[in-house]
């Protein structure tokens, strides 16, 4: 076991230890729980930083893996020993995400110790934060689908617990249930995908599966009679379903906006920075086995989600719901980017998004906290503390929070000098390259009648990216203008608002600082040159069969030279079914597939133009927001009234909740009620009828038993008693009486024998 892996496991274990210590000592710790949790996570952060430093600085090209047998199933006929292993996979993205998770978690711990101060379940809150952090570390560290699924469920479960932290109120109750059930749907489908791969390859390990797929798909890899290639597409999409639920992609995005019912630091940690990004991370992990069709579907789902959520965010009035829909939209961008083959860009955006979205959420939390304090014991306590229409001009009162919020907003809207620009620019370049190549792809099946070229839809993706950039800048700046600028709308409340304490502002400032470009690369305008993309994270090579990969007309020059030096895999497909460690280690040296190289080359061509368009759209969105909310404050509501139906369509989230209510929940409840009726009437009726019949039958049997059986027994007894009574008088005890009877009997016998038996007829 490698030292770095050991340290990573310790970093995972510390929050877990904190969880165990706090959860079992809730009463004793009470409001001192953060004194255990915060140092534990701080130490975990230090260890993660050490691991990341050693890994990225010293060994950026090595991938560490450590496995251990966990469950042995014995020997499978025709294969060999079957077992489940657990282990750790430590590559660059894992190291980076460890730092992201522990740092955001650490800052949220600090922030929460002030924000949750007066909460009645303070200790339990910190315990769950610790459990979540440990589970999240598990998700990113583990090297197989089985372990991943366990941690995946654990983060979902802690998310459920923390959304429902204030379970006395109806909102959090319903929201936590909704989050849990929606995630269950995706996870169940994801588990099918995992089992589909396990059934064929008899391993859960990512890299072993990739190595086996690379060796060639076996003909037995098939469900419902589909070809192995199609089955691989299906497997990829089944796995991706887990990400759809966890990363709140359409159609399972509905839980994330409702999850804002939880405490705001939780929203920052779980529902913005880390857990929802787990789906993106997972999609990047399984990217090597996504076929061309699967990539197209993944990117279309991502693109549609990004657009959908962005159009909803522009009309929301709740400060947290805007951020929630913004998160959904940004996650959609990342998924779209990964589907489009720009995996490194998607992961880059995941990291920068964690910084600026956590900053925005903590900023919103600071504002809400300040308003709550100002409301305390005054006539304004009826006001909704999260409604942006009650805010305004807060920059004067809360300068630290306000300026940090503005920095993060600059980052999310993709303006230069900030991290968001770099990652968003890369995503847009990748998506543009993909849209361009995919939509002009050549087909071998075009001759078929009624053939619809589904690849043409890819051309929409770059435009979706552009529109989302405009909308993102618009709704984020709308929020900034409504909350921090303009005239205060609730004057009496405004007067009492004060900046939050340092415990809360310092984490926000730190996160705002992390939004600057300097952490990710030296040149703010050239993301390609940044160390994140250049040195740390590369798009992993795909292992799919060549015929399932998209075939692009453009064959880059680089491909020809690469083909010459490209070494053939040493292991022939049929010779060894069990991947040796040698086979998995060749994965690191695996060259990218031709379509990946084509995308790479195209990305370089389009990047400069896309960069300019991205800045232009962001500025356009900013300007629009400034026009509508600063220059002409009344215009926005007038436009809203003019476009009434459209406005409501956006405000209600495309009526998706209502549609689900009618299309899914209502039929489900109807069926459930029907089943309940069947259970209540038919099943219970049958049971009751059986019971009644049994009682009736028992009565008959009882009567029979009492009067017939007992009667016979009693009759026998009575007869015997009667006979006894009759013959009792014979027993005189006088010997002479007996003798007289004997004599009489003999005489009688003699007479009978002589005159009856021996009488001649």
């Amino acid at each position, binding site marked *: 076991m490698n030292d770095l892996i050991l340290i990573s496991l310790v970093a995972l274990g510390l929050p877990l230890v904190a969880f165990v210590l706090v959860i079992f000592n809730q009463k004793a710790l009470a409001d001192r729980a953060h004194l255990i949790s915060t140092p534990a996570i701080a130490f975990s952060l230090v260890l993660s930083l050490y691991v990341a430093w050693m890994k990225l600085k010293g060994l950026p090209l090595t991938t560490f893996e450590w496995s251990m047998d966990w469950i042995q199933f014995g020997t499978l006929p025709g294969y060999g020993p079957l077992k489940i292993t657990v282990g750790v996979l430590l590559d660059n993205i894992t190291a980076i995400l460890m730092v992201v998770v522990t740092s955001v978690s650490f800052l949220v711990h600090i922030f929460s110790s002030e924000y949750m101060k007066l909460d009645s379940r303070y200790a339990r809150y910190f315990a769950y934060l610790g459990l979540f952090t440990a589970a999240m570390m598990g998700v990113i560290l583990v090297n197989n689908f089985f372990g991943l699924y366990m941690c995946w469920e654990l983060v979902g479960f802690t998310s459920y617990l923390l959304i429902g932290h204030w379970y006395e109120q109806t909102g959090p109750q319903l929201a936590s249930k909704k989050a849990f059930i929606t995630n269950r749907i995706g996870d169940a489908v994801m588990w099918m995908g995992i089992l589909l791969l396990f059934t064929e390859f008899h391993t859960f390990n990512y890299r072993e599966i990739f190595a086996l797929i690379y060796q060639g798909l076996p003909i037995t890899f098939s469900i419902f009679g589909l070809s192995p290639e199609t089955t691989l597409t299906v497997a990829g999409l089944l796995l991706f379903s887990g990400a759809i639920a966890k990363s709140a992609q359409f159609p399972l995005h509905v839980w994330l906006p409702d999850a804002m019912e939880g405490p705001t630091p939780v929203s920052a940690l779980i529902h913005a920075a880390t857990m929802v990004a787990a789906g993106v991370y997972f999609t990047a992990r399984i990217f090597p086995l996504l076929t061309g069709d699967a990539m197209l579907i993944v990117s279309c789902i991502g693109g549609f989600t990004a657009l959908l959520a962005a159009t909803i965010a522009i009309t929301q009035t709740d400060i947290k719901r805007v951020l929630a829909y913004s998160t959904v939209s940004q996650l959609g961008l990342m998924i779209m980017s990964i589907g489009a083959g720009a995996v490194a860009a998607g992961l880059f955006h995941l990291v920068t998004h964690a910084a600026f979205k956590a900053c925005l959420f903590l900023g919103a939390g600071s504002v809400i906290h300040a308003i709550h304090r100002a409301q305390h014991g005054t006539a304004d306590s009826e006001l909704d503390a999260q409604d942006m229409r009650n805010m305004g001009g807060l920059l004067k009162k809360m300068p630290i929070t306000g300026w940090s919020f503005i920095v993060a907003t600059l980052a999310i809207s993709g303006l230069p000098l900030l991290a968001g620009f770099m990652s968003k620019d890369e995503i847009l370049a990748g998506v543009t390259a993909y849209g361009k190549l995919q939509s002009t792809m050549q087909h071998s099946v075009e001759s078929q009648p009624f053939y619809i070229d589904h690849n043409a839809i890819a051309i929409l993706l770059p435009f979706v990216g552009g529109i989302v950039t405009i909308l993102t800048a618009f709704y984020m700046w709308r929020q900034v203008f409504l909350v921090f600028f303009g005239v205060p709308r609730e004057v009496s409340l405004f007067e009492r608002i004060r900046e939050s304490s340092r415990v809360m502002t310092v984490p926000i400032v730190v996160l705002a600082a992390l939004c600057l470009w300097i952490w990710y690369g030296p040149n703010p305008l050239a993301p390609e040159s940044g160390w994140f993309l250049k040195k740390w994270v590369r798009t992993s090579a795909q292992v799919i069969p060549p015929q399932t990969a998209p075939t692009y007309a453009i064959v880059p020059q680089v491909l020809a030279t690469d083909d010459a030096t490209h070494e053939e895999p040493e292991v022939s497909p049929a010779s060894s079914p069990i991947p040796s460690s040698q086979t998995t280690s060749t994965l690191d040296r695996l060259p990218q597939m031709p379509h990946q190289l084509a995308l790479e080359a195209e990305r370089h061509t389009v990047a400069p133009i896309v960069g300019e368009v991205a800045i232009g759209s962001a500025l356009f969105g900013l300007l629009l927001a400034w026009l509508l909310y600063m220059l002409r404050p009344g215009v926005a509501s007038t436009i809203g009234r003019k476009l009434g139906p459209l406005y409501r369509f956006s405000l209600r989230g495309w009526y998706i909740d209502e549609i689900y209510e009618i299309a899914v929940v209502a039929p489900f409840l109807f069926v459930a009620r029907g089943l309940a009726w069947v259970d209540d009437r038919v099943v219970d009726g049958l049971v009751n009828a059986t019971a009644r019949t049994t009682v009736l039958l028992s009565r008959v049997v009882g009567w029979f038993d009492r009067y017939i059986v007992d009667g016979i027994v009693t009759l026998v007894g009575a007869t015997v008693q009667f006979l006894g009574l009759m013959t009792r008088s014979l027993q*005189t005890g*006088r*010997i*002479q009486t007996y003798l*007289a009877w004997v004599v009489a009997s003999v005489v009688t016998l003699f007479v009978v024998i002589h005159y009856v038996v021996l009488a001649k007829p």
Partner: protein
Amino acid sequence: MSLFPVGLYHFLILAAVLFVLGLFTMLTRKNAIAVLMGIELILNAANINFVAFTRYGGVNLGGQMTAIFVIVMAACEAAVALAIVLNLYRRSQTVSVVDANKLRD
């Protein structure tokens, strides 16, 4: 040729008379000793029958032999029975078979 030639029937009648007398004694007397004497009469009635049947139709001396066995047995029986009667007297100061009814209940 005698006036009353004595034949088998005479003996049988005599034995029957003796048997009935013995039985009557057993049934009517309360004294246990008297009952025993009734038994002796009955046994001897049987003995007469044995001897008579042998004398008038037997081939060998089986009847006489049996009679001797019966006499021996009667002696044994008398000894045992008198011992019982003696014990009965010692325990209950009576030899009446009517009073010796302890086994009744």
